[in-house]
């Protein structure tokens, strides 16, 4: 028997989006020897690579839903652990703003729903109160309410911190390890991947956009189907961040939270997402007409945005399912749990989902006991509102001036416990090239610094 086959993990988490990362952390802290299998060359390369970077209270989630419960508990745990994990937050609060009469009429039921969802500090606000707090908003708004408990967070450092904590406490990460087939012998799963065979007593499907496909591969069928929903975003220059304090949410519709105006913890102001149903699970392309429409939508709500330049555009995919709620399904006979349909709220709910899943009694847990003093690694610290490495001596100088990314930060990412495989991964870990000039100034130095470390390489073509 090969060496790969000799280790039997307690748990195999398939997928390393934010949910998979939180799952790996939870099971590892519970004492399970955990392996994370990622089909891409880097973590966070699916739905979790692009979102609105907000920690939501879940005030507008369907009351009584699993989604609402997981957001609520995930939100609480995030605020409990984030300081120890070194994760920055910015408490901006949010405002739900009604821009027309039908929206205004919905506010009362939204407030009721928020209180039902255990978010008691929501407060109705008149047009005058809103404009006093946010004087740059367009004056055709009619009213709204505030949700003081909403935060800006770093969506990538968050998931990285979860996974890094798992890795620091004995978990393993296998990349380029798409699970192609799996056999359960009544006790142990044998999973075959391009990176070798992996054996584990339990499988947790956190495959996000590919969750239903993975179920079909391992169980022969899936009890949900993924309906990808694309969201495009426009990010404005840091100069625009001064225009707004709070996150501005629209009155949500059935399918989407709608177009949100929000600052980012990196100091920008963004507008998005769109909600575009599509068949492709990978097509996160942007479209000029849609981006122009988003910019226009932003200007309608915040007229001064017209004078601010655009820094970046991006698109993300939400793994919505055919149902309105999360699809967390256990297969006790197979030591298998499927975590599906984690639509746009995954970032806020990930810790709650992980705890919920870990508490589902599948019998496998008796083998292990919680760690008494788990190690806590240091995450990337990239908040524009907190101290950064460029202000600390010995950083080797600034490589990316727009985002003030130092040589030391880039080398730390490349040499760290979870090095990036792609430029995208390096960007998520350091923000390099993500600023105003989008790489005009720093790409040459970055190409030299990352030579032989990223694939595709910045400086050399494929042959």
């Amino acid at each position: 028997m090969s060496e790969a086959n000799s280790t039997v993990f307690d748990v195999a988490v398939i997928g390393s989006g934010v949910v998979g990362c939180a799952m790996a952390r939870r099971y590892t802290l519970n004492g399970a020897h955990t392996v994370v299998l990622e089909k891409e060359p880097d973590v966070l390369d699916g739905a979790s690579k692009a979102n609105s970077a907000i920690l939501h209270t879940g005030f507008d989630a369907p009351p009584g839903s699993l989604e609402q419960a997981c957001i609520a508990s995930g939100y609480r745990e995030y605020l409990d652990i984030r300081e120890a994990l070194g994760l920055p937050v910015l408490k901006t609060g949010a405002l739900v703003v009604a821009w027309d009469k039908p929206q205004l009429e919905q506010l009362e039921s939204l407030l009721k729903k928020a209180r039902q969802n255990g978010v008691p500090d929501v407060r109705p606000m008149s047009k005058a109160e809103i404009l006093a707090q946010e004087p740059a908003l367009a004056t055709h708004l009619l009213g709204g309410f505030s949700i003081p408990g909403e935060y800006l967070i770093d969506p990538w450092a968050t998931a990285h911190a979860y996974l890094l904590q798992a890795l620091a406490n004995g978990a393993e990460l296998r990349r380029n390890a798409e699970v192609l087939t799996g056999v359960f012998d009544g006790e142990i799963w044998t999973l075959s991947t391009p990176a070798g065979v992996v054996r584990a007593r339990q499988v947790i499907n956190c495959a996000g956009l590919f969750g239903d496909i993975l179920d079909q591969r391992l169980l022969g069928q899936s009890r949900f189907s993924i309906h990808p929903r694309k969201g495009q975003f426009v990010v404005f220059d840091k100069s625009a961040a001064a225009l707004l304090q709070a996150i501005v949410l629209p009155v949500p519709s059935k399918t989407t939270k709608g177009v949100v105006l929000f600052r980012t913890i990196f100091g920008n102001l963004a507008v998005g997402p769109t909600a575009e149903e599509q068949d492709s699970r990978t097509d996160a392309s942007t479209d000029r007409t849609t981006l122009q429409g988003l910019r226009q939508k932003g200007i309608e709500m915040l007229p001064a945005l017209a004078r601010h330049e655009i820094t970046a555009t991006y698109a993300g995919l939400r793994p919505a399912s055919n149902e309105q709620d999360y699809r967390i399904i256990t297969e006790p006979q197979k030591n298998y749990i499927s975590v599906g349909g984690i639509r746009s709220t995954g970032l806020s709910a990930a810790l709650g989902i992980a705890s919920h899943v870990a508490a589902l009694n599948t019998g496998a847990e008796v083998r292990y006991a919680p760690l008494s003093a788990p190690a806590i690694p240091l995450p990337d610290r990239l908040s524009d509102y907190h101290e950064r490495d460029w202000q600390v001596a010995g950083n080797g100088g600034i490589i990316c001036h727009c985002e003030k990314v130092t040589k030391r930060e880039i080398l730390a990412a490349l040499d760290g416990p979870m090095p990036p495989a792609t430029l995208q991964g390096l960007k998520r870990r350091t923000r390099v090239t993500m600023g105003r000039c989008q790489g005009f100034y720093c790409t040459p130095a970055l190409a030299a610094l990352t030579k032989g470390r990223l694939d595709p390489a910045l400086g050399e073509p494929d042959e």
Partner: protein
Amino acid sequence: MSEGCRVAIVGGGTAGLSLATTLRRLGVSGIVVLEREEDAGGVPRHCGHYPFGLREFKRLLKGPDYARRLVREAIAAGVDIRTGTAVTKLHKGGRLSLVCGGETYDLQAERVVLCTGVREASRAQRLISGDRPIGVMSTGALQGMVFLQGLRPFHRPVILGSELVSLSAIMTCAHAGIKPAMMLEEGPRMLARGFMRPFPALRGVPMRFGVGNIRILGNRRVEAVSYTDAGGLPREVSCDGVIVSGRFRPEAALMQDSPLEIDPDTGGPVIDQFGRCSDPHYFASGNLLRPVETSGWCWQEARDTAKRVAADLAQEARAQATVTLSVNSPELRFVLPQRLVPDAPPGGMAQMQLRLNKPVSGRLYATSGGQRLWSGALNTVPERRILAPIGPIITAAPIHEVLMETSVVCSMESRPPK
């Protein structure tokens, strides 16, 4: 930590170095150039082709030799060039916050001159559709890779744009053995000057004008660019990179969250005809003022600004009474300067600079309070330098704002492309 100097120049490119050297030659001591890169010299450092230096040194030089010569002259003149030093904040009254290798300190200057130059608009700023593969970059980034790092990021890129810098992209490609697959321009004709028009064809690069719906395709790397041709038909060109060239914008990041007023039309600081910003301790020169001029132009502009700064040092920095100068026709994109000091001492700019949004054949007027102060023929296209005299306007002693307007005899937009 805090220290002082007479003149702090932010940016060690053509304008900053020319300005610093000139100030020293005028006998001003205490000149500091702050350059955030490891080497001074600015954009010419990575323009590894001719023609540079004709106006300045009466010699035909390549960019890197030209940059080295500018640095050498500045050092010989006694300029303190601090590389690896980034300005992080501009404060009122000429105080700068700096960082060098994590050490932060303040520098109090009697005058600050901003010479931070220009950069090309990114793919995102141009809202270009498509996937986000590796291999999409500006001309500047390509030049840096090729000439500073000896790298070759692709074999067959598509070039977006047809400005002078787009031709520089072709030359850079030729140097590195890269063969551009195609040049795509959304406008009806090439934006670079007429005599340059045959250049891409001579280099074997096919050109397409009047294209639309440009879309970048590719998963890991660029695989193709799709577009619609001038007749509206969908096309696709296979390639392994995209050079997003031109559409320069001033690098005015430092001026955000600063005491200085920004002109949204140029994207640079609001200045008077002396180069003075809205805080009189600050001046600006070179391509930060407007997109975009040649190195030779910036070199001369900075020499002129140096003389104005030297004269200004003889007195307390103080705000001047000014009238605004602005554009008032949709065809006009910007005018520089944005303020005029009416009863000014001599020595200010002799000419204002303008640019167009669309081709115009007609006349250009300066009016104030309903009075026509000056007019001249106007017959040109976007991206070309337009100059108009300042003298007749300030000697007319306007007390109202001055507006620049066009009368369009014939808009060339309606003419079919050649």
